[in-house]
C-alpha cells in the first residue's frame, strides 16, 4: 500500500512517538499506521532499539571532588574583580550626553559647508594675475570706474 504522505508524517513523529511526546489521538494514528505499514513499523522498531541501546553510554554523574571548591573560588574572584573595577572618570560619565552633541555639531559643520559656501576670491572668478589686480586697485580712477559699473549693473 503506497502512502507516502502518511509514511512521511509517521517518520517525522517517530521520535516523539518513542518519547511519548505525542497526544493520544496522534499516538493511535501512528499505531494504526504501523500496524499496516511494514517499512514504518520496521523503522520505529529499529529506532526503539537504538534509543534503548543508547542507555549504555553513561558519563560520570558528578564532577570531581574539587569541582565545587574551584567554582566558588572563581565566583569569589569574579566578585572581587567586579568590586575593584575602576570607576569611569567624571568626564567620561557624560558620554551618553556629549557624544550626540558632538555628532550633531559635526553634521551642522558639514552642512554649513554646502549651505553657505565661502565667497571665492576675485582672481579665481576672472582668472587674472595678482600684479594686474594690484595695479587696478591702486589706480583711484580705475576703482571709480569699477564701482560705477557695479552700480549700473545693480
Amino acid at each position, binding site marked *: 500500500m503506497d502512502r507516502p504522505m502518511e509514511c512521511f508524517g509517521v517518520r517525522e513523529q*517517530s*521520535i516523539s512517538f518513542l518519547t511519548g511526546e505525542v497526544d493520544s489521538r496522534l499516538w493511535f494514528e501512528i499505531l494504526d499506521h504501523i500496524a499496516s505499514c511494514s517499512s514504518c513499523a520496521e523503522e520505529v522498531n529499529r529506532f526503539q532499539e537504538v534509543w534503548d541501546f*543508547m542507555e549504555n*553510554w553513561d*558519563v560520570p554523574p558528578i564532577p570531581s571532588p574539587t*569541582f565545587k571548591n574551584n*567554582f566558588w573560588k572563581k*565566583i569569589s574572584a569574579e566578585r572581587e574583580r567586579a568590586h575593584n573595577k575602576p570607576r569611569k572618570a567624571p568626564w567620561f560619565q557624560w558620554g551618553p550626553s556629549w557624544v550626540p552633541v558632538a555628532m550633531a555639531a559635526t553634521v551642522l559643520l558639514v552642512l554649513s559647508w554646502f549651505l553657505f559656501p565661502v565667497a571665492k576670491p576675485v582672481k579665481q572668478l576672472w582668472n587674472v594675475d595678482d600684479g594686474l589686480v594690484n595695479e587696478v586697485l591702486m589706480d583711484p580712477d580705475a576703482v571709480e570706474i569699477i564701482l560705477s559699473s557695479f552700480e549700473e549693473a545693480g
Partner: protein
Amino acid sequence: MSHFAKSDQRTIEEYDDPGIQLMLQFQQGDPVAFASLFEEYYRPIFKFSCRMLMNSGDAEEITQETFIQVYKAAPRYQPTAKFSTWIYTIAKNLCLNKLKAKKQVGLMETIHGGEDFSLDEVLASSDPLPETELEQQERTHMVKRAIESLPPLLRIPIILSRYQELSNQEIASITGCSETAIKLRIHRAMGYLAKKLKRYVKG
C-alpha cells in the same frame, strides 16, 4: 529596583518555573538563591557538557563557565524563556566554542588521546574485567563513538532529547530553530546511529 521589575509587573511568586524564581531572587540580591540554582542545575549541565565534549575535565570547565556567565548576567536577566532553556543555551554555546577551539588544536588528538572514560584505557588497565563488564564497556564505547561522529547540528538535539530528556519545543528554543527542524534532525541522527550500531541492534 531590578531591571525585571521595571519591565514586567509580575512578582517573583507568579512565575511557575523555580529556576526563574531563584534567578530573580538572586537578581534582587539574595546570594543563597544563586547557590540553590547552582546545586539544582550543575549536574545536568555537567552531564550534557560531558556528552558534548567527550571529556569530563573540559565538561567541568564548561559547567563552571556556564554558571559564571549566569552570575554575570544576573543584573540584566529577564525571564523570557524557561530557566533551563536559558542555561542550556549558554552551555551549548560554550561547548560549541570549545569544540571549535579543540578542532583548531587537533580535535582528534585530544579526544582519542586525552579522554577519561575510553575503552582503550579500560582495556589497558592491569585488572582483567569480567566478560559482562567488558561487554558493557564496549557498548558504552560504541555508543559514545557513534554519537561523537555526529556533526554538532545533529549531536546537540539527540543528546538533549535522549539524555537530558528535554522536549522538542525546548530543544528548538535552545538551538534557535523550529520544532519541525528538530524532529527531522533527531530522525536523521537516529538513522545514522542505527547504521553505526547495527551490529548491536537487531533491527
